[in-house]
């Protein structure tokens, strides 16, 4: 990853085409890796999402970025990619609803539509209260474990495989499985006691 992305951004804003090419070559790959992991159900739209992300960045996104480190930019960049992906999902749903209305009478027995999981389902108001209760429980339960154990648990919940967690945290794969299993059992005991 570009260490001095802040300088590259400044150069892009000053009209340096070479800097723009360095920037998009590096970050388009990151966007693709993120989309493949987080939004695999809309793989056909990944190129469009990336193009919209960079259109956004060149028109106002780079100018609006107020951070000073590559870490802040990475989080900012991820948010833009994610928002573009969510917009794409919304558009798909709208198109699907429209075409369903149009073709309902003609294709009663048509093929089932592709179900796109909603990655924001947890932010719905009806689930927030319950989630808060779980956060309290989780915070209390995780405190008892070493930091690396907590990271294993969270990464597993975020959908990573043992192999990926092993690479992210630089620990053996067997250790990942053991740590996750231990926290999971303990949390289940606490949760059952609570409910």
């Amino acid at each position: 990853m570009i260490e001095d992305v802040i300088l590259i951004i400044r150069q892009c804003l000053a009209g340096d085409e070479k800097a723009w090419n360095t920037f998009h070559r590096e970050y388009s790959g990151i966007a693709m890796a993120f989309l493949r992991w987080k939004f695999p159900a809309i793989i056909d739209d990944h190129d469009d999402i990336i193009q919209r992300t960079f259109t956004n960045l060149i028109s106002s996104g780079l100018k609006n970025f107020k951070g000073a480190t590559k870490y802040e930019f990475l989080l900012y960049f991820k948010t833009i990619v994610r928002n573009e992906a969510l917009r794409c999902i919304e558009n798909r749903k709208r198109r699907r609803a429209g075409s369903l209305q149009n073709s309902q009478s003609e294709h009663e027995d048509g093929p089932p539509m592709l179900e796109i999981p909603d990655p924001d389902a947890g932010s719905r108001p009806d689930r927030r209260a319950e989630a808060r209760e779980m956060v309290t429980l989780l915070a209390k339960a995780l405190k008892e474990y070493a930091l690396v154990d907590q990271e294993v648990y969270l990464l597993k919940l975020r959908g990573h495989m043992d192999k990926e967690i092993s690479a992210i945290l630089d620990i053996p794969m067997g250790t990942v499985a053991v740590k996750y299993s231990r926290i999971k059992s303990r949390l289940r005991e606490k949760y059952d006691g609570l409910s």
Partner: protein
Amino acid sequence: MDELKAKVTDAFNNFDDLKTASCLDAKTVGMLAEHKLAEKEMAKAETHIQSCLYCLGQLTEMKELLYLASEAEPVSPELEKKLSGLFSKHKKNRME
């Protein structure tokens, strides 16, 4: 996905509520993720994260993004060409 896992996954969207004034900034979290903090700062940051679910979430996300960045591969030549073209298109639009 079992019920407990679903509930815990939902909880991730509520981590923001836990943020306090003593929480770590993105730079510290990033440097911690890349093991670039001095020993004393690292110990202090780790002690905080150990009992702060918000910062643990931030650290996990940062490590995940740095991992994705390290695994990233070039996009297709067609897409790369389109992205390169955005620059001159933007320049032209600004001049008009």
